[in-house]
């Protein structure tokens, strides 16, 4: 195909829109590498095409940007974790268990990782709850025995009054 024909044949438009076959694409790319006129036409057409699609653009809802950000982060975390899979995952789990900053807590076969300060907090809450329980029971039984003692003393006092008369 002659170069001039390229400019008016619609091949450039089809190329930019992704409508050409692989063979046509290669042929055109070879031409673009050598023919500056066709390349300039393609660049101009590209600008026009961008303007055309911008005219038909629809602003996406506001939450989409955050979703994309989140998805990229998830992908990056997965990529990060990939090198530690297999044999190295054992090493990483060992090194994590030796890590002084974290304690592995197992709940229904799923692991969560918490800061080591939480361990101290859990133990403190556990001990305090036991102390409150024991103290509560102690005062309950003490109050109970005192009440019984009062009843007994009242009964004794009532019993002693008629005897004096």
């Amino acid at each position, binding site marked *: 195909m002659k170069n001039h024909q390229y400019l008016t044949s619609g091949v450039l438009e089809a190329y930019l829109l*992704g*409508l050409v076959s692989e063979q046509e694409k290669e042929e055109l790319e070879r031409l673009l590498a050598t023919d500056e006129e066709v390349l300039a036409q393609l660049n101009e057409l*590209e600008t026009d095409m*961008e303007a055309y*699609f*911008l005219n038909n*653009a629809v602003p996406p809802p506001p939450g989409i940007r955050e979703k994309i950000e989140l*998805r*990229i982060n998830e*992908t990056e975390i997965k990529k990060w974790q990939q090198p530690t899979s297999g044999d190295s995952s054992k090493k990483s789990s060992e090194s994590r268990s030796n890590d002084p900053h974290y304690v592995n807590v197992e709940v229904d076969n799923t692991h969560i990782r918490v800061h080591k300060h939480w361990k101290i907090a859990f133990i403190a809450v556990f001990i305090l709850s036991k102390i409150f329980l024991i103290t509560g029971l102690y005062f309950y039984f003490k109050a109970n025995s005192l009440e019984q003692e009062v009843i007994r003393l009242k009964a004794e006092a009532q019993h002693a009054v008629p005897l004096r008369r």
Partner: protein
Amino acid sequence: MRALKHFDGALATQAVNRETNCLSLYDRFGALAYGIILQIIPEPEIAQTVLVDLFSSLPIEFYAEGSDPVSSELIRLARKKALAAKPERYNRSLSSQEPTTNDDLGKLVFDLSFYQGFSVEDIADKLQLTKTNVLSMIYAYFKQQRS
């Protein structure tokens, strides 16, 4: 150990760069891509899923340092992803497409090829045109849009 830390640092920098570049591309071309996707899949929920997928899995040449991605690459990619995710119910047969006027023919050819994913050969066959004629109609349609 130091090498491992360096590796982690490089990965982190690369991840941050990728995120920043992809998001700046989204800021620039997000509405353009969403417009194309919605034309292909007129269902906002699916269209938004495709849009998120498009910008979160851009090929490295789009966001690599020093690269200057052009809109046409993104237009092609948005179209490709939308056509791949298009539910069956939105697939219309070529026989149901009839142009009403001659002016509509250029738009119809463009719609069929770009938004509905029919090959130039299939369109030529259905409309009883040559492949060259179909491409000329796409050329004429864009020329008309420019003027």
